[in-house]
C-alpha cells in the first residue's frame, strides 16, 4: 500500500525519517512523489519577498493609525444619533466643515454650549417661599447636577471631549475667518493682555 499524502508530506519536510517508512525502498511511485514534493518545496522556498524600505514600516503604521482614527470618527457619526436634534445638526455641520482634530476641538465648544443649554433648561423655577430646612442624614441632592448616566448625549459628548484643552480648540480655529472671534483667537498673549486692558479701561469709563 502506498504512503498517504500526510506521510509523504512529513517525510518531505523532514519531520519523519525515511527509515520509518520501509515501503519507500521498494516503491518507485512513492519515491518519485517524494522527489517531486522536495523539488517543489525547494522551488517555492527560493522565491523571496523584496524587502521594503526601512522607512516603510513606520509609514504603514501611520496609515493604519489614520484609518483607525477615521473609523473612530465614523463610529462617532453613528453615535450622534443619540444626540438631541439641535446638537446633532450642529455637530454634523461641523463634521462637514472640519475634520480630525479640528472636529474634536469643535465638539468641545459644542459640548460647552450643550451643557449650558441642558442645565439651564432643567433649572427649577425659583421657589416663592423657602421650605424649612430639615436636618437629614441622607446626602444632599444637588438639583443643578445632571446625572450623566441618565443622559446618553452627555456620555457621548464627554467621551469625545475628554483630553481636549482650550489650546486645541483655539488651534482648530472654530471661529470663522474674518470674525471677531477668529481675530481674538489669532492674538498672542501680549496682544490679549493689551486687549483686556483696553476693554477694562473702556468699561470703567462707561461705568459698566
Amino acid at each position, binding site marked *: 500500500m502506498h504512503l498517504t499524502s500526510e506521510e509523504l508530506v512529513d517525510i518531505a519536510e523532514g519531520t519523519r525519517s525515511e527509515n520509518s517508512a520501509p515501503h519507500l525502498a521498494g516503491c518507485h511511485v512513492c519515491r518519485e512523489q517524494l522527489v517531486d*514534493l522536495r523539488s517543489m518545496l525547494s*522551488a*517555492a522556498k527560493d*522565491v523571496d519577498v523584496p524587502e521594503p524600505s526601512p522607512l516603510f*514600516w513606520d509609514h*504603514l*503604521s501611520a496609515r493604519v493609525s489614520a484609518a483607525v482614527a477615521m473609523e473612530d470618527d465614523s463610529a462617532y457619526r453613528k453615535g450622534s444619533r443619540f444626540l438631541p436634534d439641535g446638537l446633532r445638526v450642529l455637530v454634523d455641520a461641523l463634521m462637514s466643515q472640519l475634520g480630525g482634530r479640528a472636529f474634536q476641538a469643535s465638539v468641545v465648544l459644542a459640548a460647552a454650549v450643550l451643557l449650558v443649554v441642558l442645565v439651564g433648561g432643567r433649572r427649577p423655577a425659583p421657589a416663592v417661599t423657602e421650605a424649612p430646612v430639615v436636618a437629614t442624614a441622607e446626602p444632599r441632592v444637588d438639583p443643578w447636577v445632571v446625572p450623566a448616566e441618565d443622559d446618553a448625549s452627555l456620555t457621548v459628548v464627554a*467621551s469625545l471631549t475628554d483630553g481636549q484643552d482650550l489650546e486645541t480648540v483655539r488651534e482648530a480655529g472654530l471661529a470663522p475667518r474674518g470674525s471677531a472671534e477668529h481675530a481674538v483667537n489669532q492674538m498672542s498673549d501680549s496682544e490679549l493682555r493689551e486687549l483686556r486692558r483696553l476693554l477694562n479701561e473702556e468699561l470703567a469709563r462707561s461705568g459698566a
Partner: protein
Amino acid sequence: MASSLTWTLPGSRPPAPVALPITHAMPAVDSRSLEDLGERELVEACRAGRPGAFDLIVERHRRAVYLLCYRFVGSHEDASDLSQDVFLRAFRGLRSFRGQSTLATWLYRIGVNVCLNRVSAKDTLRRLTTPIEAQQFVDVRAELPSDLMLRNERNARVRAAIARLPRKQRATLILRTYHEMSHQEIADVLGSSVGAVKANFFHALGSLKKLLAETA
C-alpha cells in the same frame, strides 16, 4: 481616555460648587508601560481605549501581515493596502477576539480572508508576470546579470503558478512555506483539521509541479 470627567459650569452657580461627574463604564486599566504588556493585556488595553495600545499591536505584527499579503498579491502597493485593511478589520473585531488562538494566528486568519476575498488569481497573475518592482528591491550586487535574469524569470514563474492554485491550497502553501507555521496553526487559521492541511499542502505542491510544467 480618562475614566471620569468633571464639568464645571460657570455662570449658573448654586450655593454649592457645580460639578457634573460623568463616569464611563470602563474596565480597570493596567498602569504598566505598554511595552511591558503581554499579548492578552495589550488587547485588553486596546479594548479599554488606552492610547497607543493598538499602535503597538500594529508595530509588532505589521511585518508578518505585510509579508503575508505580499505573498498573495505580489505587489508592494497592493500588499500595503491589504495590510492596512487587515489591521482595520482587526481593530473593528478586537472586541470579538477571545484569545483562543494567539493574536498572530488571529491576524493571519483575517489576512488570509482579506487576501483571498479581495484578490482574484487573474489580478495576481497580471502583476506577477511583470516583477519589475521585485527586481528593484533584491540585493543583486553579488550576482551576475545573467544569473539574476534567470533567477528572476524562475521566481516569476513560480509566483505565477502559486497565484493559480486553488484558494485553500494557495493559502496553505504560503503559510507553511513562507511563514513557517505549523500544520496545527494553519488549521487554526483556515478553520480546518491538521489532516486537511497536510492533504492541501500535498496537492498544492503537486499542482505547482503541473502548472510549472505547463509554462516551461
